């Protein structure tokens, strides 16, 4: 039972992290029409930026976190102009290639320029090691708890921004009908850049959370993360924010429980088998289109 509870909590934490990543994928799909497959690799690049600064500053946590957030925003903002011509022409396949290229380039940068291509490890202080909450035989590490809380906060803040602010309404208008948005005097390219910057900001914060909860990163982390995000996106119906949240948490819990009870790492195989089966019977995904 203790194992179960520990794995469940760890799964929910993992799930909320996925949820934050999936929200960014959905944001970009809804506003720009782009499935940004390279986004997860850019997120991992932010983890590397944090690691680099942590190393250079003798593990100054504040500076490391700032480096992750700043690199997330900068990476979002400088990659957005690459996509603009394709967004204007609604050339989504070309945009997909650009996105893949960005992911591959950032993976190569990580494997060539950092730590001799070996996985990087974050200082234990970032994971708040030694501090934990004990409840019976279940021990929850502080780093995990903080990750969980901050992820939930990001989701709430994002939904508030989207639904209750002027900029959020503008993003939603572009997502619903680009033509009408233009008629209303909304600049579609500016909105696209805003959504990239926002996805970058959230990506930067998420990079810290990943570092906090896993303690390591490697250049291939982006690939496995984008594969998982893709599974959730298709499972939950692409562009469906609520569905994405629910499916992310389910994936996190299933993955965590599988890790606790099954020998070897079968999570990707299981997750994608479920996706294929569901898509066979419900091609539009579990939740359908929603705005």
């Amino acid at each position, binding site marked *: 039972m203790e194992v179960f509870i520990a794995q469940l909590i760890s799964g929910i934490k993992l799930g909320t992290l996925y949820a934050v990543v999936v929200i960014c994928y959905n944001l970009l799909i809804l506003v720009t029409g782009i499935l940004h497959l390279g986004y997860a690799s850019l997120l991992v690049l932010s983890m590397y930026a944090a690691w680099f600064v942590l190393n250079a500053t003798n593990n100054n946590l504040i500076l490391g976190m700032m480096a992750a957030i700043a690199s997330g925003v900068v990476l979002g903002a400088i990659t957005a102009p690459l996509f603009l011509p394709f967004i204007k022409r609604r050339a989504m396949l070309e945009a997909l290639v650009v996105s893949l290229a960005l992911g591959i380039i950032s993976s190569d940068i990580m494997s060539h320029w950092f730590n001799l291509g070996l996985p990087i490890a974050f200082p234990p202080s970032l994971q708040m090691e030694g501090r934990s909450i004990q409840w019976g035989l279940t021990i929850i590490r502080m780093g995990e708890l903080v990750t969980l809380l901050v992820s939930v906060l990001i989701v709430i803040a994002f939904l508030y921004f989207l639904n209750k602010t*002027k900029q959020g*309404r*503008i993003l*939603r*208008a572009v997502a*619903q*009908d680009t*033509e*009408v948005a*233009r*008629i*209303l*005097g*909304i*600049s579609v390219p500016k909105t696209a850049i805003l959504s990239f910057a926002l996805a970058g900001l959230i990506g930067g914060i998420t990079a810290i959370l990943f570092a906090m909860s896993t303690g390591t990163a490697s250049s291939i982390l982006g690939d496995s993360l984008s594969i998982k995000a893709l599974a959730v996106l298709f499972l939950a119906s692409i562009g469906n924010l609520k569905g994405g949240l629910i499916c992310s948490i389910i994936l996190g819990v299933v993955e965590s429980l599988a890790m606790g009870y099954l020998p070897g790492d079968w999570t990707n195989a299981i997750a994608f088998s479920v996706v294929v089966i569901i898509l066979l019977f419900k091609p539009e995904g579990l939740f359908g289109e*929603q*705005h």
Partner: protein
Amino acid sequence: MGQNNQILKIENISIYYGHICAVRNVSLSAHQAEIVGLIGANGAGKSTVLKAVLGLQRSRTGFIQFMGRDIAKMSTENIVASGIVYVPEGGGVLPFMTILENLLLGAIHFKGNLHERLSKVFERFPILKERQNQQAGTLSGGERQMVAIGRALMSAPKLLMLDEPSLGLAPKVVTGVFEVILNLQKEGYTILLSEQNAKKTLLCANQAYVFQTGEIVLNGTGQELLTNPNIQQAYLGGYSEK
């Protein structure tokens, strides 16, 4: 009509979709507090002219002047910010947003008191106030048109362009839409009205232009065109008896 109260002046514009000419050598103008009607069959180029004013289509020739400024090369964003709004065919209401959210989106370039503006729109269309938190997709065609016009008014525009506001609406509702348009004119709004309902348009238009395959074939005051035998035969056939 003097030059000083001229709001819009379109001079000799031509617009192509690829190699196909949609609008050829069109010139027209609108003055303060005028209803200017554009009538003609579907595909005659009326909407294309309105879209050109908003910068959604670009003319290869001529110029478009709004309150003395050439806007032909301005971005749609800046054109809207300068005081021109366009209500597309069907209204262009965002169905997955509430009525209130739709209205607020009309005011993204509005600099004045938003609450005051909103209550003015609610005063004009009380039903929108009652249902402000309802999804716009659940509304009827006539109600959507109200949201669309209300949203356009949110920015206190200097020129209101309505594209087929009566299309697909029940006759009673059509009468209501034209009442709204006439009231807006009385309050001083300048309106460019593209319509297939020629009779109703000519009845309320100060000036009207008749479009045929991308060109203006006739223009005059609404009264002149109403009594023009060619127009009566071509456009008013069914309606003229009533």
